[in-house]
């Protein structure tokens, strides 16, 4: 199964979006939240993100979903073509779409495409 890492400036934001996506998309998906700095502040910890990637990597690839700023830049630094890829998508909707697709057994490209479909989903 494809793994997913949610990267946010805020530990709480990453955790809660992960909880939401898990509830909708299924608890079996390898999903990790990597938010905040190591001292509990707002920011990004590359070590935390690296550990999260290792935690969810089952050999079928990992999709990184960042929120903004340093989350995006950190995710870009840790990309590895064909294995660890960044999804440039809305954080909440993209996370849910990706988890649902991964839970359904989609490939890395499939999960990425599903996450990107979140751009098209309007609320009204």
């Amino acid at each position, binding site marked *: 199964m494809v793994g997913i890492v949610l990267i946010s400036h805020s530990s709480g934001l990453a955790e809660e979006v992960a909880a939401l996506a898990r509830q909708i998309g299924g608890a079996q998906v390898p999903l990790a939240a990597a938010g905040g700095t190591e001292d509990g502040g*707002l920011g*990004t*910890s590359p070590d935390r993100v690296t550990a999260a990637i290792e935690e969810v990597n089952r050999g079928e690839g990992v999709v990184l979903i960042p929120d903004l700023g340093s989350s995006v830049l950190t995710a*870009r*630094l840790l990309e590895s073509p064909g294995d660890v890829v960044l999804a440039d998508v809305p954080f909440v909707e993209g996370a849910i779409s990706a988890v649902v697709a991964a839970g359904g057994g989609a490939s890395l490209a499939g999960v990425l495409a599903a996450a990107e479909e979140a751009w098209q989903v309007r609320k009204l």
Partner: protein
Amino acid sequence: MNTEFFAAWIDEIAAVVRARRDHLTQLDAAIGDADHGANLDRGFTAAREALTGASPRTPGALLVLVGTTLIRKVGGASGPLYGTAFREMGKAFGEAAEVSPAELSTALDAALAGVRRLGAAAEGDKTMVDALAPAAKALAQAVRDGLKAEEALEAAAAAAEEGAGATVPLQARKGRASYLGPRSVGHEDPGAASTALLFGALRAAASR
């Protein structure tokens, strides 16, 4: 310029970032999230400690270690950006024990390319690129004009300062400040300001 010179540069940066920490944070408070001074202080303090622990033997190895430490320790967007800049410079130096101003110029171009690639920012977006790009250009021109290292670094530092100052009237198109739209106008970009400090520190290292 040898390993000792670049170690002195990092010392100068750590000192000036510590001295200007509150100023950088105030700039960031106006249009960002008020952590730039604290983040860079933490990052360059960690970089100095890493250098003391590892004692790298070449300028290239030293700058790669500084870059890697900044990426891990800064916590904000400036970590990956400055980290990439230092790593690209270090990689451009390869195994050389000593580098010329011309080689420094080439390395700086690589750093600029790395930062642009990562942040997708262009000149005029009100980012560190607005100080880094003119500094790289000025250094390249100084090398073409055959200036001595000290004069070349003076030209680069002056260009970085001028570039940072010129961000004041700009509206941010990249980074946290871009969410503010027109409200970002009238403030100096903190990333451009800290880049100017880095080039000032390079000038200071050369005149030590």
